[in-house]
């Protein structure tokens, strides 16, 4: 679409519009087109068909500019994944997918139903545990999430599990008491499973707009985040806001959700993602 065009202000504006429509956000879109202009000038580019690949390259660089890309289970120790995020983002479903993947690889996986608040949350995760063929630690509705986590850590350690995945209740980042609850869960895990390798992932719905920046910021202030999961990329939303998050807080996207089925989970490929943004 951008071949055979004059490289002028109109073209840059059109490229900016594409980025904005993909939820890349105003500031990050400007930063990207700024980098593009600079490279066009430095590399003396005259062919407009070269602009898109350069932009894809710049986005890919922003997305991978950190040392924590990708995810590998650390062998010979307990790995703990804590899934956090706002209501309805896809945490519980993503846990089912991850559980199935590693259980299918012969790993010993345990789930912790630490969403003790929402109606039928435990039943929902229990169904996923069943489908993934893993055990689940759960307590009654209204139980203290900390108690479930405490229980789960001890079980995971004593059973010598490879992976414990903790499901938490959806929460909006501006709710201080709920952020405090998350901190408490983090502390319990650190205390009860000190030898474990722990990662906390923020689950983001690809349909989310710039509020994802606030989510990454405020969740990140409450707990140490090591990555993002971007869900619902099978829809028409592009999820471009993760570029701004990567640029600002160096948070890498670890995995993506591409459907509601148990196998609809992919490793994040930055170049593929950046290319699809223009699709």
């Amino acid at each position, binding site marked *: 679409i951008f071949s055979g065009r004059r490289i002028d202000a109109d073209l840059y504006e059109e490229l900016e*519009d594409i980025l*904005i*429509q*993909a*939820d890349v*956000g*105003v500031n990050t879109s400007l930063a990207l087109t700024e980098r593009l202009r600079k490279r066009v000038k430095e590399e003396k580019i005259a062919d407009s068909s070269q602009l898109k690949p350069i932009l894809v390259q710049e986005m890919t660089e922003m997305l991978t500019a950190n040392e924590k890309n990708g995810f590998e289970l650390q062998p010979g120790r307990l790995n703990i994944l804590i899934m956090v995020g*706002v*209501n*309805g*983002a*896809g945490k519980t479903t993503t846990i089912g997918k991850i559980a199935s993947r590693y259980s299918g690889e012969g790993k010993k996986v345990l789930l912790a139903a630490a969403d003790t*608040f*929402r*109606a*039928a949350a435990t*039943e*929902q995760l*229990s*169904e*996923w545990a069943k489908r993934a063929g893993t055990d689940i630690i759960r307590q009654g509705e209204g139980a203290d999430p900390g108690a479930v986590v405490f229980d789960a850590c001890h079980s995971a350690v004593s059973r010598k599990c490879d992976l414990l995945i903790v499901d938490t209740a959806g929460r*909006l*980042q*501006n*709710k201080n008491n709920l952020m405090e609850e998350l901190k408490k869960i983090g502390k319990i895990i650190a205390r009860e499973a000190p030898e474990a390798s722990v990662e906390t992932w923020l689950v983001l*719905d690809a*349909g*989310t*707009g*710039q*509020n*994802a920046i*606030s989510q990454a910021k405020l969740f990140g202030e409450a707990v140490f985040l090591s990555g993002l999961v971007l869900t*619902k990329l*099978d*829809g*028409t*939303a*592009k999820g471009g*806001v993760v570029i701004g998050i990567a640029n600002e807080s160096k948070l890498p996207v670890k995995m993506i959700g591409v459907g*509601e089925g148990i196998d609809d989970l992919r490793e994040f490929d930055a170049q593929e993602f950046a290319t699809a943004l223009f699709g």
Partner: protein
Amino acid sequence: GLGERLQDIFSKLKGKGKLSEADVNEALREIRVALLEADVNYKVAKDFAAKVKERAVGSEVLQSLTPGQQVVKIVHEELTALMGAQQAKLQVSPKPPTVVLMVGLQGSGKTTTSGKIALWLKGQGKRPLLAAADIYRPAAIKQLEVLGEKTDIPVFSLGDQVNPVEIATRALEHARTNGNDYLIVDTAGRLHINEELMQELSAIRDKTNPTEILLVVDAMAGQDAVNVAAAFNEQLEISGVVLTKLDGDTRGGAALSVKAVTGKPIKFTGTGEKLEALEPFYPDRMASRILG
């Protein structure tokens, strides 16, 4: 915020009597940026800025002692007008029960909002019936049943092995024989690009003839909200929108986008996880929130 930025631009007006084309364009750009940062769709933001331009270069601004403030006032007024009227009314069917069909993307808040609307109706002395027509999501039926138990509102379910069209049809029959004056049908979240599932909604609509088809939209939705809203509206002719999770800190520009592209009223807002957290839509409050 936008207010201060517009004040700066228009303070140049003082003593000149007229704004330059460049100044006007700068002001419009500031307005567009503010809306984009609030997640208003970029086309909707462009159209809105063009609307404001007409008034911004008019005498009400140029002859004002505080032109910057005047422009802010215009932006707020135009935004509020675009948001539609304040309302929290469900249309009533001349032939009860009134059927309310809840639709939308995955995770937007349909099940919770179904419970909220049922509770709201019960509080008005009505006798709502909830129908569990999501047979796909694990424990979705259980989720609605728990909400029904908490509020002492009946939930019609045929389990997850019966197709949703059949469930909705039988729920309607049940409502009629049971004397329920409202039937709220909770459906599975779905993508607007899933033809089969969009067809399923059309079939439910054809069988139950809903008076209200409410599109449930997450207030933190981004640029894609227009595509989703347009598609659901095209498929079903929605009657209104519920904007959820407004208790968060999102600016909520999706509200303007959805209203602009469908023309349909935002009827309610979700302001929390509890079933009491349902409020009418306040257009002026939403306008202030979007402008930040």
